């Protein structure tokens, strides 16, 4: 137990050193890469609550990521121009916009989950995928917000005491968010609620037989995961100062799934490792060839066939 906390502290300390290392090496790109990893790790950790702990293979996680991002984008758009529907003013303060993004994603997850969780197994996979696709089309068709081309905005959301253009500071903001989310999820999976989730993954029929109304617990987990993805989306929008339907593309949902499984599902460190591996592998392969996916695809097949427990599993 103590060793685990120590390991976590060491990992956080190392993550804090990334900007210094990037400066020493003269590679500021590393900071962006690190920020990206932290953001994806947040979304993937939330998804792992479903895949790894509850046993729900949600294939529509990009929807909540995108909704969080678009909340930021749309609020910035209205802050710079006309109020929404002529009445709702835009927002630029992080402490208002980010909770709003989380809330929007949570509500969407509640609605999608309420419908999707009426089914199980492969139908659940298809349905979550389909609903995410629906939101994708919604934003493609919203010409006001850029449609296909996406929506850019000039400044990151304001955080008191932090310069909006300071990439290093923003890295630390995302890192803090990641640590907080992981701490939160750590409490959740070890709580009574978390026990119930894990029980449902191991033996759903048994859980019903001992008197559990499983639906509402699954729905709560689904909503929590959606909310966490909303936060990640909001951060991602801030990183790029740009949102587009790509955030909701179905391959994004696939990528989040890969991060969870690649790192090791059913652990909290796993998604973080998976996100890091995925981002680093992509940027590394992309240096060699623009056709990096031709390598990535078979790697994925290989991992599924021969290293089912992910990168973490290799060290156990």
């Amino acid at each position, binding site marked *: 137990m103590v060793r685990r906390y120590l390991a976590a502290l060491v990992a956080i300390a190392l993550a804090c050193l990334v900007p210094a290392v990037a400066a020493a090496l003269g590679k500021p790109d590393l900071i962006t890469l690190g920020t990206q990893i932290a953001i994806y790790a947040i979304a993937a950790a939330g998804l792992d609550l479903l895949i790894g702990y509850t046993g729900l293979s949600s294939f529509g996680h990009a929807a909540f990521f995108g909704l969080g991002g678009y909340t930021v984008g749309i609020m910035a758009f209205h802050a710079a121009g006309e109020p929404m529907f002529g009445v709702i003013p835009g927002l630029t303060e992080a402490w208002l916009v980010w909770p709003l993004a989380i809330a929007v994603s949570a509500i969407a997850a509640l609605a999608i989950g309420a419908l999707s969780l009426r089914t199980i197994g492969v139908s659940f996979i298809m349905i979550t995928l389909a609903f995410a696709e629906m939101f994708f089309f919604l934003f493609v068709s919203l010409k006001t917000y850029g449609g296909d081309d996406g929506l850019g905005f000039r400044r990151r959301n304001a955080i008191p005491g932090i310069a909006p253009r300071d990439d290093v500071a923003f890295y630390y903001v995302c890192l803090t968010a990641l640590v907080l989310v992981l701490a939160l999820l750590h*409490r*959740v999976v*070890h*709580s*009574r*609620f*978390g*026990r*119930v989730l*894990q*029980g449902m993954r*191991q*033996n759903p*029929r*048994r*859980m*019903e*037989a*001992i*008197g*559990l*109304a499983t639906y509402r*617990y699954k729905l*709560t987990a689904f909503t929590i995961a959606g909310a966490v993805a909303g936060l990640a989306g909001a951060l991602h929008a801030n990183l790029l100062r740009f949102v587009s339907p790509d955030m909701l593309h179905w391959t994004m949902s696939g990528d989040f799934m890969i991060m969870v499984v690649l790192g090791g599902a059913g652990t909290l460190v796993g998604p973080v490792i998976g996100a890091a591996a995925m981002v680093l592998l992509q940027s590394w392969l992309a240096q060699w060839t623009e056709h990096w996916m031709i390598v990535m695809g078979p790697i994925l097949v290989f991992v599924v066939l021969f290293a089912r427990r992910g990168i973490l599993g290799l060290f156990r």
Partner: protein
Amino acid sequence: MSALLEVRGLMKRFGGLIATNNLDLDVTEGELHALIGPNGAGKSTAIGLISGELKPDAGTIRLARADITAAPIAARVRLGMTRSFQVTSILPEFTALENVALVEQIRAGHSFRFWREAARDRSLTDPARDTLARIGLAARAEVAARDLAHGEQRQLELAMALMTGAKLLLLDEPMAGLGATESQAMTEILAGLKRHTTILLVEHDMDAVFALADRITVLVYGQAIASGPPDAIRADPAVRAAYLGEEA
């Protein structure tokens, strides 16, 4: 003595097959009531209907006088009835203690508590340890359920059923797959249990059934052809016909 479980005119068809045919069944408070019959007689279907996993086509099921015919599984458990499974059904990755503690957690009410660590919650682990002790598994509390011996897993299942605080246990072949010694041990555990709990037992092990049961109901083709104390059942011509192929 009143009937704790009262089944009247229960019907269930699967396509053309009548799995449960106009079944009447009374399980009296405090008794161990065995449900026996040849393979395919509809015993598992009957348990499925009573526990709420299957919906009957007709008939009523009452538990302690409350009509539960259409009640969901969770509601039936709250009213004091739970089942075990033919195939061992436990949570393999959790320890024996965690398995039983989780049942106590669900019995105690809703599980929308997100913060406190469940493993250190004495209000869950203490009763769980007591139940494990009652069922003879105290020494194995910290072992992951999948690493328990088969007989121990069946014991664990029983502990979980017990922990729901059920007034009525539906046991679906608790001896299935057990060796002779393990069966003997399980018979003793059931003999101990029946002093505290009403039990509806489906079992193929006839030695165990006749040693344990206060009353026996015999199912053939989904229908109860006889019901009574063990000795009467042993002598019943209809039962002998069903089992031994004798002319009734």
